[in-house]
């Protein structure tokens, strides 16, 4: 970048001088790449807007508008919102009256189960990570490794004993069962992730606070926790995404009342033997994407703020 301020620099296309900042030029470049990366998702969203008979058309219809004539007519479809209402109520037999599909309940289940288990895992896991990081036990690494091991086996192996156990105890098909299972499922990642953030912190500030007479609880809540907010946000988002979309455990361990959306989506799309119902699948997925998309979007600032507490790194 040249030091003299060119025209492009003056309008903010380039930015020089300030480290870690760029102008609109970077926006343009990154924007193109991001949009390209996003295309398969965009196609799913567009499919949810298509009339049912256009879902499999050749050539594929790609856009709801012709963008003032930029896109040739045979790539353009007329958008409709009908598919979204058919997620919640549609006729199950040809020509029958629309029936409720129960998807409102499934969305509710997904939200309750995912959010509760991720919060639980975050609370329990952060405490444990702090313990592992600051008060190492005898055989600390062994404990950590055993925790990691719980994530290593394919779900199918763990699931059979879990099914048997749940049946014996009566947790099968209940909220508590699946929430506890997902909490455990998230714990390994939460502990490892948060431990790596706690390990990065300098202990100087903590020790200074201890010398000044702060209690251990206060050191944790007032000094350590605020420094790892970025880590908490990232862990929350990852946990939420994984739990939100988890399929196998939900398929085998939820009952009709506690069924989550991925399971119901799989059933709704492949039922009836008529092959995949593309527009229905796309509209369920689009609706299902919105909550987790919004959470990620609003946590993003935390996600990227990083550790700005002004600590001196080791």
């Amino acid at each position, binding site marked *: 970048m040249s030091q003299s301020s060119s025209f492009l620099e003056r309008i903010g296309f380039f930015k020089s001088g300030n480290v870690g900042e760029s102008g609109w030029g970077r926006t343009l470049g990154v924007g193109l790449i991001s949009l390209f990366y996003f295309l398969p998702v965009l196609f799913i969203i567009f499919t949810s807007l298509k009339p049912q008979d256009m879902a499999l058309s050749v050539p594929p219809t790609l856009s709801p508008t012709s963008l003032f004539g930029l896109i040739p007519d045979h790539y353009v479809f007329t958008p409709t919102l009908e598919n979204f209402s058919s997620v919640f109520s549609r006729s199950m037999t040809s020509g029958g009256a629309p029936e409720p599909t129960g998807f409102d309940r499934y969305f509710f289940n997904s939200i309750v189960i995912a959010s509760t288990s991720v919060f639980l895992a975050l609370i329990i896991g952060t405490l444990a990570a702090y313990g592992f990081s600051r008060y190492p036990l005898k055989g600390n690494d062994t404990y950590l490794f055993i925790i990691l091991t719980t*994530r290593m086996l*394919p779900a199918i192996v763990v699931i059979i004993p879990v099914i048997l*156990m749940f049946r014996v105890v009566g947790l099968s098909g209940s909220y508590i069962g699946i929430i506890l299972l997902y909490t*455990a499922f998230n714990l390994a990642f939460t502990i490892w992730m948060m431990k790596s953030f706690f390990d990065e912190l300098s202990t100087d500030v903590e020790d200074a606070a201890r010398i000044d007479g702060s209690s251990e609880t206060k050191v944790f809540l007032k000094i350590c926790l605020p420094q790892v907010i970025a880590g908490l946000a990232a862990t929350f988002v990852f946990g939420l995404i994984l739990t939100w979309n988890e399929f*196998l455990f939900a398929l085998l361990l939820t009952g009709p009342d506690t069924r989550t959306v991925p399971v119901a989506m799989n059933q709704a799309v492949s039922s009836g033997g008529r092959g995949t119902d593309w527009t229905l699948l796309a509209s369920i997925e689009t609706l299902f994407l919105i909550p987790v998309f919004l959470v990620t*979007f609003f946590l993003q600032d935390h996600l990227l703020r990083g550790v700005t507490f002004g600590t001196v790194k080791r």
Partner: protein
Amino acid sequence: MSAVVIDRPAPQLFEVAPDNWKLAILAGLVVSILAALALPASVSFWIVGAMAALVAAAFVVNAYRRGYYGGLLVAPAIAVLFVMNIFPLLWSLGLSFFAYQSNQQSIRFVGLANYVKALTNDLAAPANWHALINTAMFVVFTVAAQMIVGFLLALLFSKQFPLRKYLLILVLTPMMLSVVASGVFFTYYYDPTFGILSYVMNQFSNEQFILMDNKVGAVAGIVFADAWMWSPFVMLLVLAGLVSVPKYLYEAAAIDRVSGWRQFWNITFPYIRGLLMLALLFRTIEAFKLADLVILLTKGGNDTLTISYHLIRIANEQNKTSEGAAISYLMLFMVIVLTNLYLYIANRRSQGA
């Protein structure tokens, strides 16, 4: 660390005290065994659970009285993991020494026979090995692709620029899709008749383009879909590291006219090393378990059967529960060796640096 340690004599073995965890374990074990022998499973389960809680309570009181904060903080996590993960794992480990099929009532102790069969049987062993080799191939390709793409994406977003927030969320979205939906839609993208990929390829040649026709294409299709979905995961971890690098270090480097490469290696890399390792570790573990995309895209055809899908077939479709358990413990053994090796190298590096 200046944690206050209260000196307090440990209680005698048979002294009834709330912090006598040795006695609690002893009593818990006796009661649990008696309950398991005498009472039906649905009752004895809760008794065993209550005993575990008793032992846990004794540990907590003990830890609190003596200022073992580590044990206190870690206890809840260990308890949840034990009930929901470690206990089922041990159960399935036990199951692997029996002949048991989930569609039959009989169960018979066979010792190591399941392991011997998985490793030496003329029919089973080559199929297992083959699935394992396929899995290794998928692990290498998908993890490499995710690490590279994720790292490059993170570099793109490492600087502040207008609208960064909105562009970043576009890149993160693939990770948020349900694998059912994205997998099914990838079958559409790859479809030889209706699919977009074939449509584009047919513009350039007259032959019909079928991606999933041979092994190379099928593997490429699966790797692409998996890497597309999970590169954002790597990106987010790396990015969290990149933005945590204090700016003054770069400013100092700029004053000293340090070259870009050295700046990266000496300033940036130490901050992202831990997170890169974490991303690599978790993606490798997940890649070993790759099954859903294979099921959706090829159903194991064109020689793309992975060990995890192989296990689903054995344990779920053929109901050979204990055989599946044996194979998965062999697999776990391999993953543990790999992970330990990897953690060893990572630790040595960080100590050497």
